[in-house]
């Protein structure tokens, strides 16, 4: 069949909401877009373990330590599902990881911000996991089957993380004056980077339109961001805190919150590697990988020995 017809057939399936599976024919660009997006997502889960991992040994109670450990462990699990989803598109996990380490592949810029106080752990749960959920709930209906299915599992855990993060902030918001201050300060620092997680405005976004046609995405960056703002603007009231945006106010006519201008210059700088922790995050991943090389080698050498031993026996 000529490619043109294949493409038409493919688009018909998409339009009819039939999931695309690994063995189905798909346009090269669709495959490439998915590889880029899913591997970027996988890397974000794994790099995201670092800023939160930063507080595991210092968690303020045994209960909080256990919750945080379990959360970071969940994120590692998300990374695994997503690397597996990337593999269904014909790219090995090793290749994907190498692209992260060489700087070729990106991960969510939010993880290039530092976790300075304990309140940051709550703020990440509430705002960062919260923003991730907005995106991921949409992706449970994405057109590529393995990605959609990975998202269903992940979303359940992410909403749990968000609730725990919020609850942890709630305790701070009702605590001592120092804790309240810590809580507000964390919200101040994470709010704008969290809004940037949805990516550039629709007018600036290069991949958006085609991704919508292929139903990889079903909502635009700006729509998702607006939903997130509307949700947080209400939730922050329960905390008795405020969002650091003087322009934030309810707009009756739009039925949405209006909000102030996002600093896109900062966004692009962090994307390009100039954020507060870009160097450290990547260096930590590379070091873990390099330090682990002898372990991986020994494990496969041992497995080979056992295998040839079994054959001989």
């Amino acid at each position: 069949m000529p490619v043109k017809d294949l493409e038409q057939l493919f688009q018909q399936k998409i339009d009819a909401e039939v999931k695309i599976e690994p063995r189905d024919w798909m346009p090269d660009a669709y495959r490439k877009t998915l590889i880029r997006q899913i591997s970027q997502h996988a890397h974000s889960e794994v790099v995201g373990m670092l800023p939160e991992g930063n507080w595991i040994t210092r968690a303020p109670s045994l209960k909080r330590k256990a919750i945080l450990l379990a959360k970071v462990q969940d994120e590692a699990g998300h990374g695994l599902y997503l690397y597996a989803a990337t593999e269904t598109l014909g790219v090995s996990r090793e290749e994907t990881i190498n692209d992260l380490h060489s700087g070729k592949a990106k991960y969510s810029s939010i993880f290039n911000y530092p976790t300075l106080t304990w309140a940051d752990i709550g703020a990440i749960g509430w705002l960062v996991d919260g923003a991730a959920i907005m995106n991921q709930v949409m992706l449970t209906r994405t057109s590529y089957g393995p990605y959609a299915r990975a998202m269903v599992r992940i979303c359940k855990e992410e909403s749990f993380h968000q609730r725990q993060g919020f609850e942890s902030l709630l305790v701070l918001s009702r605590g001592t004056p120092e804790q309240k201050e810590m809580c507000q300060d964390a919200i101040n620092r994470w709010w704008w980077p969290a809004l940037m997680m949805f990516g550039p405005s629709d007018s600036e976004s290069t991949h958006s339109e085609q991704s919508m046609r292929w139903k990889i995405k079903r909502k635009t960056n700006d729509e998702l961001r607006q939903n997130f703002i509307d949700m947080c603007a209400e939730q922050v009231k329960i905390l008795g805190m405020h969002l650091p945006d003087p322009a934030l106010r309810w707009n009756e006519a739009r039925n949405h919150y209006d909000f102030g201008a996002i600093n896109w210059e900062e966004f692009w700088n962090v994307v390009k590697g100039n954020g507060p922790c870009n160097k450290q995050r990547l260096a930590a991943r590379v070091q873990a990988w390099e330090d682990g090389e002898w372990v991986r080698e020994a494990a496969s050498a041992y497995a080979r020995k056992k295998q040839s031993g079994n054959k001989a026996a």
Partner: protein
Amino acid sequence: MKQELINYILHLADNALILGQRNAEWCGHGPVLEQDIAMTNISLDLIGQARNFYQYAASLLGEGATEDTLAYLRTEREFRNCLLVEQHNGDWGQTLLRQFLISNFQQLLYTALQTHKDRQLAAIAEKSLKEVTYHLRWSSEWVIRLGDGTRESHERMLKAIDTLWRYTGELFEPAAYETACVQDGTAVSLATIKDEWQHKTGEVFSEAGLPVPENIFMLTGGKMGKHTEQMGYILAELQYLQRAYPNAQW
């Protein structure tokens, strides 16, 4: 007697907490994602065990003691964990060897403790035993894999043994509170599990092609609150927030 029992429970709790804390340092830095997850799991299990022991000790202590006052507000001289659990992670091999040595010990200890007369301790031991049995299997496999893997991994395991073996004697040296509890029937007599520990260690080392050291001078003291220099740093990190903001709720 009550004070001895409390000290014994704290000793069990401190072992679990400090090892869990050390293992947690790996989270996000493991050699491969699956093992990162496995290590975090073990850390979670150990912290869970520590909480059960601390809660029990707190209930005996009364006077506002909680799992957190016990974990966060005692000083290094009051902690009663063995020196082995506080040792640096070193490389993956050293961490795994430490885990194997302790899991082997905890598996035997909890098995025996299950049938002891303190019902609460027996129940915690029974609950922890499933976890520890898995830790032992997992760490045994790794010790074998690394001992019998490549030349480099073998060398690294020899070095790990050289670093850690000197702390294994303490596992079987009863502290005064322990001896008192053994006489009372609430603690496990270490002499009764030592042979089995040596046997299992010998078995795993031999499959790994690693030698069991002999005539090593053993370092002890942790169970009595005399720790290595590392302990102060572990607690400085662990206890930082509780110390910086006294009486705050988290």
